[in-house]
């Protein structure tokens, strides 16, 4: 089952950190690291995607606090979706 809402949620959270670059960033992570189209993003992919995003963000920003906050926000999606 495809889950475009999940992709939208990831982009919405990312927007707070990467602004206009958010959509491009998330699409790139999904395509390059998960080998999928954004529309094919599933709940099971989320953990792996967050790991890749964390790695990428550490290269982009040296502000560990901001990166940790971003990752925590993304992790809230895993909990929300489970419940």
């Amino acid at each position, binding site marked *: 089952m495809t889950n475009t809402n999940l992709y939208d949620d990831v982009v919405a959270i990312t927007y*707070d*950190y*990467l*602004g*206009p*670059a958010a959509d491009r960033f998330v699409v790139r992570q999904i395509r390059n690291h998960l080998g999928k189209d954004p529309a094919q993003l599933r709940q099971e992919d989320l953990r792996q995607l967050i790991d890749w995003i964390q790695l*990428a963000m550490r*290269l*982009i*920003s040296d502000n560990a606090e901001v990166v940790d906050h971003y990752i925590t926000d993304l992790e809230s999606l895993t909990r929300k979706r489970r419940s």
Partner: protein
Amino acid sequence: MKLQSKIFYSYSLFVFVVALLTLLPSPVKATLIKYHLTATDARLLFFSLLLPTFVMWFALFYGYAKLQGYSQLIKTNRDGKQVAKLAYGLLALALGLPLGSILSDILGLIARHHPSFTAASIVIPNYFNVLCMFIAFAFINLGIRGLNSLSRNRPGFAFGHAVAALDIVLGVIFCSLIARSHHNIMTAYHLTPAMVMLTFAIPYMYIWFLGLYAIAEMYAYSKQVAGIVYRKSWNRLAIGLGSIIVLDIVLQYLNTLSSWLNGLNLAGVLLLLYVLLFLLAAGFIVVALGTKELMRIEEV
């Protein structure tokens, strides 16, 4: 040919041509007498001014290359088109400064052998500079305005009015200086004060407004755009672009008021030029660094 190679070859060509045009011809006698210099002293002095100029041009071309590279990276997106406009603005500055210098040197050489050409040798480079500044500031203004429209930002009411007031103050001071010094203006521009008002003061006031308003737009964008990390990277780019605009306005102001600068001694003129060239180069380096950070977001 890759963009970076094109830029490197263009830069090298400009440096070579300007160095030849500045150092090969014998220095103007009036300058030698005024500052009590020998021809060798004058050439050494020109060389000492060429070095920071070339460093500034390098920073300028490097800053443009980085911004153009970033705009290419995001060209399929809406903000990519706006960043491309900013890059075109920097390109107009990058080409305008060396081309203006080459044009001025060539026409100056012609005028030394054909005195009837003196007026044209001053008027043409001056208008060329006005045109380049207009193109550069118009593109920068359009680009940043476009970015603000995409994020639904606008400079605050007070900021917008402060820009208009500052532009009026700059314009009025400029016009009053023109009106006060009738003879100096005729020597500096080879145009009547009325023509200077009409074809320099008014266009410059508009160009300064474009530049100052672009700074207000940039400030609004870097404060209000979404994305903590993106905003931080953009801040550096905005500081670089903003300082370049301010320094260009200062340079234009000093350039148009060259008759007043003639009153300074050699050390004063050199110090002023070195400081301005250094600050301008620093502005372009800051643009390049800011763009590098934005590119990193698009590359990982």
